[in-house]
């Protein structure tokens, strides 16, 4: 088996290389610059060409919104077997299998990939240090789809790579009270996050702040969850954090099952005191 790892400049291929290693020693990393390849169709065509010229039968892509589009189009184009958001690969009596979370993260499913070419996506980290030179490619034309604008957005609140995250949920009573959370986050040097209802129902913050299945997956040293009940969709986005502290008035809130420290109490009583105590240090 021969694996091809694709990343953008600025993405560390290491997670993808490590994922492939249990099933093959032949792993090649190719860096593809974004410019000219914004449309998923263009990237898929370039990657399909690389799969063919390198004779690869396993393609590993970053699990990002951009490559989710690419993965689907590449899978369709190559009639491949695709495992998005894989956490492990193995060679088994069922052939090449991928482990991935199912049903909002309740279980890990093992999926047999029953096509000659397999497409796998997995989380990548930002690259520290210098990137390899991007592969020289000629951007292919894309029928019926024209990029008319691209605006770089602010650094996404830095949530994905923050070493400390303070997140809040429905127990926060008003949008003005986000200031309480922000003050605590500032005292801790943490990024602010939130649960899905804050984005989808309350519309207090945009998607870049959402932790969980449809938002950002975080793995900080400290995850402090304030008034978040702990729906599985949320837990899957934060449960690999090193230390998880949850504050909730409901002693049977599911978030406590995923916590190292389960603080049964009112965030309005605890947050201002915690902020003050940290500031006084």
């Amino acid at each position, binding site marked *: 088996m021969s694996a091809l790892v694709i990343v953008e400049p600025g993405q560390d291929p290491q997670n993808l290389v490590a994922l492939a290693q249990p099933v093959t020693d032949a792993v090649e990393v190719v860096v593809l610059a974004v410019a000219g390849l914004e*449309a*998923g169709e263009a990237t898929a065509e370039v990657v399909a060409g690389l799969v063919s010229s390198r004779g690869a039968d396993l393609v590993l892509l970053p699990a990002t*919104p*951009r490559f*989710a*589009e690419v*993965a*689907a*189009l590449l899978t*369709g184009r190559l*009639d*491949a*077997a*695709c495992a*998005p958001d894989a956490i492990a690969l193995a060679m088994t009596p069922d052939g090449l299998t991928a482990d991935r*979370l*199912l*049903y*909002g993260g*309740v279980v*890990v*499913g*093992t*999926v*047999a*990939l*029953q*096509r000659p070419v397999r497409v796998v996506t997995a989380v990548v980290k930002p690259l520290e240090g210098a990137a390899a030179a991007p592969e020289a490619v000629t951007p292919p034309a894309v029928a*019926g*789809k*024209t*990029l*008319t*604008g691209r605006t770089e*957005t602010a650094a*996404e609140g830095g949530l994905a790579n923050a070493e400390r995250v303070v997140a809040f949920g429905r127990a926060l009573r008003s949008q003005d009270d986000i200031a309480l959370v922000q003050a605590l986050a500032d005292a*801790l040097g943490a990024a602010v996050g939130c649960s899905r209802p804050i*984005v989808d129902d309350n*519309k207090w913050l*945009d*998607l870049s702040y959402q932790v969980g299945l*449809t938002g950002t997956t975080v793995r900080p*040293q*400290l995850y402090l969850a304030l008034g978040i009940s702990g729906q599985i969709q949320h837990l899957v986005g934060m449960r690999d954090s090193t*230390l998880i*502290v949850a504050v909730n008035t409901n*002693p049977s809130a599911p978030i406590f*099952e*995923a*916590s*190292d*420290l389960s*603080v*049964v*109490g*009112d965030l309005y009583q*605890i947050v201002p*005191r*915690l902020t003050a*105590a940290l500031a006084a240090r």
Partner: protein
Amino acid sequence: MRILVCVKHVPDTTEVRFDPATQELRVRQAPTKINNYDENAMEAAVVLRQALKAEVVVGCVGPSEAAKTVKEAVAMGADRGVLVTGPWVGELDAAGTASVIAGLARSEGPFDLVLAGDVSEDGYHSLVPGLVATALSVPFVRGVSALDSDSGGDLVSVERQVDGAVESYSVTLPAVLSVSTALNTPRTVTKLQVMKVPMSKVATRSAADVGVDEARLTPDAAATRLVGVRPAATPRSNEVVTGEPDDVVAQIIARLEQAGVLA
């Protein structure tokens, strides 16, 4: 203009449990519902229906009880719905589902626009819309967060959020778009509105009806096949702290210090 909206009938994942005693996944007992992400696609279609006098057809691949999900989607403002079902739906993978939807799009179409939510809450592959676009040889955009149709209806302008950028595209129809929850706020329908949708508006089709050979929809013929499940729990110390706020705060800080989180 004619629009196909793909909706998925999913178990409520908050009710899905793994039984450690039997090592079984309890999915069948879980309540079922419309995939929330597809409601954003429905909302977009209903807005276009009003603006462009488009015909909106709901398409669903699922078990016979998915008729309730089709009815719910139709109640949001579609003209009619089609459920493709058969003994093969239980273990259908993303590629199989996409082949059936592409068959549906051809047999009920032609459609100018195929809309779906970005992901489904159960499998979370985010593959089917892109696979449908590939099968139909039409452009695809995933993660649509803004959508504008020109009045003629042969072009749409879309925006999508990717890592660190917002991109806009001009897309020639026919096309497949999967939409993000940032696109809109889906209208809510009452149980009464859903009940009032006559079953005559929900047609049922077999794989053969939409031109797909059932033999290609078996787990062995599929691109992917689920071969095992195990619980995904991460053990935690679950140390409970309660009491006076000042005491609680002191205990939190002690724990943070112990973990070396405080500088």
